[in-house]
């Protein structure tokens, strides 16, 4: 497309953000129609970075089958729909993944009374899977590698999958571990279900943009990095205004736009990161507010902790 995405978005005055049609914790409309969730927060941050106003986002629900077309056809500017970064998606489908906002892996959930403690014991089981993701392929590969058989019950949506699983229509429910946790948390009897220890795949979930518009990719990538960096530097939505004026840390100053003008290099205002962080807080705050342990989803940070705490979050330096 002729003009740059950033310019298009600025002209439009709104960011079209492709999200899940409804996955609690990541992206789902609440009863009054406001979108909430981990993915949604990133949309808000990007909007904050560009416009200084986190509300200038249009959430476009995408299904697993139409999400890539929505992006390549330009109807959405960025896709942030718990989408796994894979080689073929990055190359063949002409998309650019700009980073990973959640490190996930596929796991299994079973009932306690099934008496299974390892995925290796699932030979012959009936397994509910949500179609249209990488899960089918992982599942097939895993069972093949372990020389086991299974019956797949393909399910269109998570809600349907839960229902089937709870009604006992399948022995195990498989999807990304984050999703399993979220699902289990909402059960009436979470204690009767276990998530098996095996994580059978790497599922780096991240935002994707169209291939060939690196400037726009940079905006999204560095907005995300800014959130991670903010957590690393202890910048929170509570103290950010104070730090913006008083922080002596040069990197914090650069990040918040008080020195240098990093924003100008990617075509944004100087205080872009400040606005991005203000939109929903830093990575840790967002995590805690949407999917963290205090929420019904109750996910631990795990791999998604800062590198300083043994996790994989590691942002390149802002300079």
């Amino acid at each position: 497309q002729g003009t740059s995405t950033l310019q298009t978005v600025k002209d439009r005055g709104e960011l079209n953000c492709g999200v899940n049609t409804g996955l609690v914790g990541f992206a789902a409309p609440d009863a009054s129609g406001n979108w909430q969730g981990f993915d949604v927060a990133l949309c808000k941050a990007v909007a904050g970075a560009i416009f200084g106003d986190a509300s200038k986002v249009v959430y476009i629900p995408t299904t697993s089958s139409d999400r890539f077309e929505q992006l390549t056809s330009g109807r959405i500017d960025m896709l942030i729909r718990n989408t796994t970064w894979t080689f073929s998606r990055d190359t063949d489908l002409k998309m650019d993944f700009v980073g990973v906002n959640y490190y996930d892996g596929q796991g299994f959930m079973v009932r306690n009374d099934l008496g299974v403690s390892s995925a290796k014991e699932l030979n012959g089981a009936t397994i509910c899977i949500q179609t249209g993701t990488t899960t089918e392929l992982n599942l097939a590969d895993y069972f093949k590698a372990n020389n086991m058989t299974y019956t797949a019950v393909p399910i269109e949506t998570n809600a349907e999958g839960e229902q089937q699983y709870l009604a006992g229509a399948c022995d195990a429910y498989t999807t990304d571990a984050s999703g399993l946790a979220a699902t289990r948390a909402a059960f009436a009897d979470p204690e009767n279900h276990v998530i098996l220890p095996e994580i059978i795949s790497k599922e780096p979930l991240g935002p994707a943009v169209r291939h060939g518009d690196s400037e726009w990719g940079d905006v999204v990538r560095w907005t995300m990095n800014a959130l991670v960096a903010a957590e690393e530097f202890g910048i929170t939505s509570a103290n950010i205004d104070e730090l913006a004026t008083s922080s002596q840390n040069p990197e914090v100053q650069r990040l918040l736009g008080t020195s240098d003008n990093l924003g100008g290099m990617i075509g944004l205002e100087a205080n872009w990161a400040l606005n991005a962080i203000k939109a929903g807080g830093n990575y840790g705050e967002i995590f805690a507010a949407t999917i963290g342990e205090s929420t019904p989803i109750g996910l631990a940070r795990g791999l998604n902790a800062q590198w300083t705490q043994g996790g994989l979050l590691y942002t390149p330096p802002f300079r």
Partner: protein
Amino acid sequence: MAVVTEEPKAGFRLGMLIYDTRYRSITIQIVVLMLVMLGVAWLIDNLLSNLAALGRGIDFGFLWNRAGYDINQTLVEYTNDSTHARATLVGLLNTLLIAFLGCIAATVVGVIAGVLRLSNNWVIARLMTVYVEIFRNIPLLLWILMIYTIFTEAFPAPNAFRGDTPAASMVMFDTVAFTNRYTAIPWPMFDRSLGWLPLGPLWLNLDLAAIVAALVGGFLLNRFILRRATRIQEATGDRPTTWWQCTLALFGPIFLVLLALGTHLDSPSLQGFNFTGGLQVSNSLVALWLALTLYTAAFIAEIVRAGINAISRGQSEAAFALGLRPGRTMNLIILPQALRVIIPPLISQYLNLTKNSSLAIAVGYMDLRGTLGGITLNQTGRGLEAMMLLMLIYLIVSLLISSAMNVYNNSVKLKER
């Protein structure tokens, strides 16, 4: 005589393109054709430039790549190592299977409901009216979801059959188990199986072929017997009783073939998480089948009712007055006429059912839409190609069905003055 007119053959004027009946229709057609071609050219031009901008072309090569996913119901050999093309074939066969089963069941249910709706039994007629109205006026998707939910909610999980005092038990002398995943039923196995015959990419199951041959043979034999009865009737006036001969002809050959193949029933039994042995008919198939059947049957019932009503009372009265008994009247007079009225809309219901089976996705039945238009599309991202192929296949199936209908229509058209 003051005739103010020009010779018709006099020179051609431009206005004649519009005001002369000879040229007018040609003019209009050319304009329409040009507009349509312009439109199509515009679309194709957009398509090409869009694809060029994305750096993609139309490429069906993905069909020959490894599919990588499993399908829970396969009528032909399929593993996750098979190609996407094969997955498409599996999906197509699943679509055809549900369409076939649905059409048969819907016809049976629909005809019964339609006839009962005309019955003079007040309770039954009302009941059928309620059934027809309820099913016709509520979206099919809702029926599919509801019936599927009933299945998952109402039947026990397979592990309920486990243990010394199981919560659930099998029915029909421990041969059939209804679970919330599938219905496990006994299935014939052959001791002296004939094996498989390779035919290109597909394998022909010789057992199946033998059974089909026996069925067809029995059918032909039955027809022969009926023909013979007609011949005898024509010659002597008396029609020999044929019902036992027909029964023998219809079922004899298949019985012999099954015997020859060493058939025994393989009953399902619980092993591990699930039943093994026999045949497990997945609930998604059964629920979808039931929903499609009941929904379409409601429409068929109306068609049947209208068809029978369309035959005037005078026809049966005339037959009665000639001394024909009601049964004969039905067979010789009413049915042949009603069928002419019924069959064309019936076939378009078959078409609808086939197309509606694409809602299988709602219950995870892997039909054409679920494989080619679902997982394959998602995995390869080839939306344009997959959708075009999907439409093409549906279109071909539909056209085949409707051309069969046209052949039939033309063959039974009533001769008029």
